[in-house]
């Protein structure tokens, strides 16, 4: 076990607390940089989605994980970013400008959502953000002169410094990766600044934060604006990756997927956003695998255990029928959410920390270390 000997207050807020971090993150970055030259184009395409989802996950973590403001409306911010890009692209605005414009516009709208949210907490905030998302969805479908209504908009490939970057090329992957890395580094810096500490203070106790001199309203609006702006940037990449956007892509379902990203990854650390994004993007390939390969494998297992050809074929068709049921994806989502909330509330990153601690303390690990406190006394109504 490594003991960090802190001699300076600066040691508490270092981005890389010790040299081991340079090695592990350097290796990770190297792997990510050579990935497009090694992996197949399908995997690369999934990796781009991981980058985009992780960026949104980081944005959501700032708001939900660190400021404690729930949001089920992030699909709307993503949509605003995507549509801004698509609209400005029609007028031949260069990529860097509409990329920034999308972020700024989404940030402004985020701040506008933040103001009414100041008066709301808990369940009311969740419902208000859902309403906001539904209203945005309806506006996208009806404002046909700008958004082309339900027919959707085509998005051309990115044109960067005179070079056209196709959505499947390694360059586009590097672009998404760069946005993700910059977002993460920026967020880490934000969180160790006074602003970030104010966010966390608001999350832990609004009253305490206010009495310590934190301007709660200002910081909440800031948190909304920053979170929305990052989501807007992700929206531009999302639009380019899909090359076609229409209002029915940005539904409540997508907002819930973003919440699942941070819920599965862990809401207390930025690692959670990336882990959760990997998890959620993996679900689709997993379902395809279930549909294509699983029936054959299970039939093979059945055959080795002495089942006849007839019954093995029978098993195979039954498994295939189950795997191609219509609602399977929804059911899997549902089960995953419930299981994580019940049994792994700290998410995948929490599990990793538990495993790490288990080996660090080897015979002395106790489960209660990570136990959350249950509160039966307070009522949300008298907050």
């Amino acid at each position, binding site marked *: 076990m490594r003991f960090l000997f802190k001699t300076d207050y600066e040691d508490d807020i270092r981005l890389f607390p010790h040299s081991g971090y340079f090695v592990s993150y350097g290796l990770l970055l190297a792997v990510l940089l050579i990935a497009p030259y090694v992996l197949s184009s399908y995997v690369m395409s999934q990796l781009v989605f991981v980058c985009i989802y992780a960026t949104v996950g980081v944005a959501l973590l700032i708001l939900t994980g660190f400021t404690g403001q729930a949001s089920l409306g992030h699909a709307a911010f993503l949509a605003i970013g995507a549509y801004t890009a698509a609209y400005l692209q029609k007028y031949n605005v260069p990529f860097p400008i509409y990329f920034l414009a999308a972020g700024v516009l989404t940030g402004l709208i985020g701040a506008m959502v933040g103001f*009414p949210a100041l008066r709301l907490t808990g369940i009311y905030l969740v419902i208000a953000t859902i309403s906001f998302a539904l*209203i945005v969805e309806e506006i996208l479908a009806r404002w046909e002169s700008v958004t082309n209504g339900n027919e959707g908009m085509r998005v051309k490939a990115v044109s960067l410094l005179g070079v056209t970057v196709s959505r499947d090329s390694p360059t586009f992957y590097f672009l998404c990766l760069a946005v993700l890395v910059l977002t993460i580094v920026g967020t880490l810096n934000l969180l160790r600044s006074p602003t970030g500490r104010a966010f966390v203070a608001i999350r832990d106790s609004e009253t305490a934060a206010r009495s310590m001199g934190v301007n709660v309203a200002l910081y909440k609006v800031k948190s909304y604006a920053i979170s929305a702006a990052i989501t807007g940037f992700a929206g531009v990449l999302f639009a380019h990756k899909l090359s076609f956007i229409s209002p029915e892509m940005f539904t*409540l379902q997508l907002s819930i997927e973003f919440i699942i990203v941070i819920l599965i990854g862990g809401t207390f650390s930025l690692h959670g956003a990336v882990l959760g994004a990997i998890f959620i993007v993996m679900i689709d390939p997993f379902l395809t695998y279930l549909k294509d390969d699983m029936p054959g494998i299970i039939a093979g297992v059945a055959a080795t255990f002495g089942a006849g050809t007839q019954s093995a074929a029978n098993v195979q068709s039954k498994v295939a029928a189950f795997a191609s049921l219509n*609602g399977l994806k929804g*059911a899997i989502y549902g089960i995953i*959410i419930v299981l994580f909330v*019940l049994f792994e509330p700290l998410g995948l990153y929490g599990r990793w920390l538990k495993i790490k601690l288990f080996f660090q303390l080897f015979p002395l690990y106790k489960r209660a270390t990570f136990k959350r406190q*249950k509160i*039966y006394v*307070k009522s949300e109504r008298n907050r």
Partner: protein
Amino acid sequence: MLDFVQQLVSGVALGCVYGLIALGFVLVYKATEVVNFAQGDLMMLGGFFAFTFIGMMGLNYWVGFAGAVAAMALFGMVAERVVVRPILGYPQFSIIMATIGLGYFLRSIAGMIWGTDDLKIETPFSQGVLRVGSLVLAHDKLSVIAATVILCTLLWLFFNKTTLGTAMRASSENMLAAYYMGIPVKRVVSIVWAISAAVATCAGVLLAPITFIHSNVGLALGLKAFPAAVLGGFGSIPGAVVGGVLIGVIESMAGFYLAEGWKDVAPYIVLLAVLLLKPEGLFGLHVRKKV
């Protein structure tokens, strides 16, 4: 003028449906401070149960109705035991997510079992109409309004006049104190989920002739029931119904008098306005934080 009255009546009928679902939210919220995002899906499931009893097994309508209510009450208790009880006492957001997950699960499972077609139940109210002057009122809509009034009155009396109702209100205020006072909090929570699932089933069965039964009906109506519950003030039983009726009337008026598209958005605009101007709703209690 006739158009207006006709729209008003159909708005009230629609609103009563929202009110019935909102009643389910309010019951659970009143007793446990949990918001059940799967309420609409419980309603959907209740409709499917009734379809199984009435349409597939050929039972009498009322017997099938009662059977569905009983089955769903049991289901509500099981759902509470499995999904909600282990996380009571944790921050509200985890419980919201858990019920969203439950809703996802129920929707897909219902789609797998009963298929994705629109199903219909033959009811005694499906056909008839009541004529008042030149006004035409369909029996199925009147049945919804009547059932809402009856259920709302019964539940209000139950919460305010009976011992069990008082116990529920007490455990919502402070579970620990309620437990010290001898209230079996776990059983109370279990019962309240059973009641709310039963109310949801009533909504689902009464709605069957109007909207048909479909695995996604719960999500659409459940989302509309939120504005109703908020408008009435989360935690007030008459408030839920009044809020539901208001939302229903606003929606049907917006659909009739305003351009296309306003109908779907109007309830949410009203909701945001209410949250901004009077977050505690029409019948809600105004509370301050004591430090």
